[in-house]
C-alpha cells in the first residue's frame, strides 16, 4: 500500500475542516443577523485588510520581530544554560530550584515591570516573549542532557575530547528530541508573550493595533489582527516541525 495516499487524504480533510469553519462563521453571522461590531462576516474581516490606515504589513512585521526575536533568544539562552548545568553540578543544584520557582511566576504579571525597566517598544515585548518561552526550552533541554548515558561521556573523556566536541557530537544531537519538545511548547508561548507585551505598552504591532481599533469598535480589524497573529504563530510552529522532521529521526521524537 502507498503511504502517500492516506497522507494526502488527511491534508485534504484538514483543508476541508477549515473551509467548513469559514462557512459556519459566514452562516452564523448571516442567518443570525449578528451586528458587525459584535461579529463581522468573513468578507468584512478580509476587507479590513484593505484599509490603509492600519498599516497591516508594518504592524505584522513588528509583532513578527518580537515573536521570532524573543523565541530565538529563548532558544539560545535555554540550551546554553542547560549545557552549563552539565558542566557544574553545584551550579545546577544552586540555580535549577530558582529557575523552577521563576517558572511559576506568571510572566504576564512581569509585563508592567518590564515596561518600567525597558520603556516600551519592540525590545521589551521581545523580552516578554523571551521570558515566557525560555523555561520550557531550558527545562526540556536539561532533561534531555541528563538522559545521555554517562558512559558515553566517559568514552569522549578517555580520548581527551573537548567540551565543544562533547556538545556538538554527543550532547546536542542526543538531546535534540527533547529540545524540540520544549521548542513546540515555547512557540505558542512566545506569541502570547509578545501580544501581552503590546497590550501593556507599545506604539506598534498587531496587539497595539487591536487596542486602537477597539476604541472605534472596528471589530473586523480586530478579527483580522487575531487572524494575522495566529498565522504568525502557525508559521513559527510549522518551522519548528519542519526542522524537527529534518534533524530528528522519527523513532527518536518526544511528544
Amino acid at each position, binding site marked *: 500500500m502507498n503511504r502517500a495516499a492516506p497522507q494526502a487524504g488527511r491534508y485534504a480533510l484538514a483543508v476541508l475542516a477549515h473551509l467548513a469553519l469559514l462557512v459556519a462563521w459566514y452562516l452564523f453571522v448571516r442567518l443570525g443577523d449578528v451586528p458587525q461590531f459584535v461579529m463581522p462576516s468573513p468578507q468584512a474581516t478580509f476587507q479590513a485588510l484593505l484599509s490603509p490606515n492600519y498599516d497591516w504589513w508594518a504592524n505584522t512585521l513588528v509583532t513578527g520581530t518580537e515573536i521570532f526575536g524573543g523565541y530565538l533568544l529563548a532558544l539560545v539562552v535555554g540550551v546554553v544554560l542547560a549545557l552549563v548545568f552539565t558542566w557544574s553540578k553545584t551550579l545546577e543544584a544552586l540555580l535549577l530550584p530558582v529557575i523552577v520557582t521563576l517558572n511559576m511566576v506568571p510572566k504576564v504579571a512581569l509585563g508592567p515591570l518590564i515596561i518600567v525597566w525597558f520603556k516600551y517598544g519592540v525590545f521589551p515585548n521581545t523580552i516578554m516573549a523571551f521570558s515566557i518561552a525560555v523555561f520550557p526550552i531550558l527545562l526540556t533541554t536539561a532533561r534531555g542532557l541528563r538522559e545521555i548515558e554517562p558512559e558515553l561521556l*566517559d*568514552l*569522549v573523556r578517555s580520548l581527551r575530547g573537548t567540551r565543544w566536541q562533547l556538545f556538538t557530537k554527543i550532547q546536542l544531537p542526543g538531546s535534540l528530541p527533547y529540545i524540540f519538545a520544549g521548542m513546540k511548547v515555547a512557540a505558542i508561548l512566545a506569541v502570547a508573550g509578545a501580544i501581552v507585551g503590546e497590550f501593556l505598552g507599545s506604539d506598534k504591532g498587531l496587539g497595539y493595533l487591536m487596542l486602537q481599533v477597539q476604541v472605534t469598535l472596528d471589530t473586523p480589524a480586530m478579527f483580522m489582527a487575531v487572524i494575522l497573529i495566529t498565522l504568525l504563530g502557525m508559521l513559527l510552529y510549522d518551522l519548528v516541525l519542519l526542522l524537527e522532521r529534518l534533524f530528528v529521526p522519527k523513532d527518536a521524537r518526544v511528544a
Partner: protein
Amino acid sequence: MSVEPFIHLAGVRKIYRGGGHEHLAISDATFDVLPGELVSLVGPSGCGKSTLLKILAGLHPHDGGEVRIGSTTHHFDPARDIGMVFQAPLLLKWRRILDNVLLPAELLGLPIAAARERARELLALVGLGGYEQKYPYELSGGMQQRAAIARALVHDPKLVLMDEPFGALDALTREKMNLELLRIWKESGKTIVFVTHGISEAVFLGTRVVVFTAGPARMADNFEIDLPRPRTLDLKTHERFGVYTRRIYKLLGME
C-alpha cells in the same frame, strides 16, 4: 629475561568520599599486564573492578599506589591509546554504523579518509561487513556490541578496556561473542583488560585472571590461565578449566 609489563599496578587504592563517609573502592591492587595479554578482572558487583578500569582509562584519579601504563618497547599515549567498550553498546542513535565507528577518529582529529577505510576493515573484522549504512536500531544487541568493539579499535589504541561488554546479551550470543573476541584479539594483537562477573567467561577468555572480592573490596588472586589456544568451546570440559573456575568460586566464597 622477563618481558617488561605494559601495565604495572602496585598497591593501587581508591577511596570514594561523599555524604560524610568514606568508601574504600579498591584497597590494594597489584598486578602486571604484559603487552598483548587479555587479562580478565572478575568479581562480584561492588568489588572495584569497574573503578579500576576507570583509573586505567584516566577517568578517575587513584588515591595511592602506582599506576604505570606503557613500556620502553610499547609507548603509551594516554590521550589516544585507550579504546573502551561498555555493557551497553552506547551507539549514537542518529548516526549510521560506519559513522558511529568513526567517532574516536573524529575526536582525535585523525585523517578521516584513512579512518573511514580502517572503519570498514574493522566492521568486516567484527562480522558487520555490509551494515555500514544501517542505523543502530536496525541491528540486534549482539551486532550493536560488535560495532562498539569496532569503534574501540578504530583509532588503533594500544589498550582496550572492556567493562562487562557481553553482560547484557543472552547466553548463546554471549558464547558466540566470546569466540569472536578471541579472534579479534588475536588478529589485532591488542592488550585487553576485560571486566566481567562471569567466572567461566573470565577463565575462557583470559591469559590471566585477576580476582576481586567485595566487602571489603580487595584483590584476592592473580594467576595465569594455562589452557591450549586457539580456545574452543570444548575447552569448557577440559579438566584444568574446571580447576580454574573452582579456584575462583572458592575465592568468592561460593563453595
